[in-house]
């Protein structure tokens, strides 16, 4: 059974390809759009907000109290009055940070969608591994007919995803003129054509379903990057 790990796009590779610190919920200092769609990610996001509020309270409350004490020449009443101010500043800071991260996330919508495709791609690799394990356990139940086609599709998709992430990073860094992007987009279009051919050859079976999903990933990448090129050609 071949090891599919080299095909997987790792977290470290994602950081290098995007130039950002990528996690389940964030891209650098920006939230991923998929946070609002997945309950698991939403819980992770909410727990981070609570922790952030805790850290903000640690910084703001004692500082506000110390400033109040200093300004009021040690008046205890003034110190107690400044307590809600410190808590308010902490809540406002946490909210402002969340809004900023959300705004930055909307600015990086394309990258966020591409990262979702990467997640989907990695999940597909896991599905293929499970399928192969099942085949090893009971060879008669599942056919191996389309396996090579699926693996080829995954290779093609990987190449497209890497191309797309590289293009997005270059676009982000240099908004005006990039000659390289035409070559990258041509490569993605060729990969999509390959995927469509592979799907045509392998309609039925579990692998056929995986090929269909691989084609969907390829199409999504193509759709995400199309605006970059159409804008430029106008």
């Amino acid at each position, binding site marked *: 059974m071949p090891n599919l790990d080299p095909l997987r796009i790792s977290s*470290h590779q994602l*950081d290098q390809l995007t130039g950002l*610190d990528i*996690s389940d919920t*964030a891209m*650098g*200092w920006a939230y991923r759009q998929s946070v609002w769609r997945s309950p698991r990610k939403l819980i*992770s996001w909410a727990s*981070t907000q609570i*922790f*952030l509020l*805790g*850290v903000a*309270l*640690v*910084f703001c*409350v*004692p*500082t506000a*109290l*110390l400033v109040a*004490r200093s300004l009021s020449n*040690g008046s*205890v009443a003034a*110190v*107690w009055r400044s307590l809600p101010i410190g808590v308010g500043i902490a809540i406002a800071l946490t909210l402002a940070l969340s809004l900023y991260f959300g705004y930055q996330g909307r600015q990086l919508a394309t990258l966020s969608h591409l990262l979702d495709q990467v997640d989907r791609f990695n999940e597909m690799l896991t599905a293929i591994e499970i399928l192969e394990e099942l085949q090893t356990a009971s060879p008669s139940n599942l056919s191996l007919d389309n396996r090579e086609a699926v693996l080829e599709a995954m290779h093609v998709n990987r190449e497209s995803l890497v191309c797309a992430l590289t293009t997005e990073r270059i676009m982000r860094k240099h908004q005006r003129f990039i000659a390289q992007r035409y070559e990258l987009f041509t490569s993605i279009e060729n990969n999509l054509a390959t995927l469509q051919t592979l799907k045509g050859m392998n309609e039925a079976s579990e692998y056929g379903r995986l090929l269909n999903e691989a084609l969907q990933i390829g199409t999504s990448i193509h759709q995400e990057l199309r605006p970059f090129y159409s804008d430029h050609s106008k």
Partner: protein
Amino acid sequence: MKHFTVLIRLLRDRKNFLDEISHDVKLESKILSLLVASSLFFAVYGAIIGASSSWLQMLSSAIKLPALYLVTLIICLPTLYFFDILFGSQLNFRQYTVMALTSVSTISVLLFSFAPIVLFFLISVQGYDFFLLLNVAVMALTGFVGVKLFYKGMRIIVGPDAIEQQLRNRLLKGWVVLYGLVGSQLGWTLRPFFGAPNEPFQIFRPEIEGNFYAQVFILIRSLFGL
């Protein structure tokens, strides 16, 4: 709980962690995770030492102890950064922030590891001065270990090829002393962390004058009846 995973990686695989910092890998998530994890551990320890007095003191110390370490860090970090880049450092501010946070996080974990012992003495010994000195000793020990690891870590990530190496090492030592001085004075300003026995809860002590070192000296004298 990926924030705590980052901290465990720092403790378990320090070499690779420092390597990632020097290569600017995932610094944003490291900053956030170390801030969150260290705040929580300090808060737990703060709550334990505050519990020697009252529940209000417990709540107050759970906020004041993390503030003591983290605000000291914010106060001292720009000094380290600007002096270091002046003498040839190529590291950026985020790398300095993570390095300083590794030191504070190590201290927080060590304090947290002492929590059961401190809790034991809190329950079994009824001496305020002893409890106070015990905690000063624990904080001094954990602070020393954390700062020593920070010093070694900084020397590793800057590397032996850095310009003005000897001068920068002296600068680093000076900064460590400065960090200790600022921290202990801020601790004095933020007191009480323990709450004096048979006295009502105070958010701050009314008298602002005096300093930390004089008080430790008075405590030692009082403990030994001098």
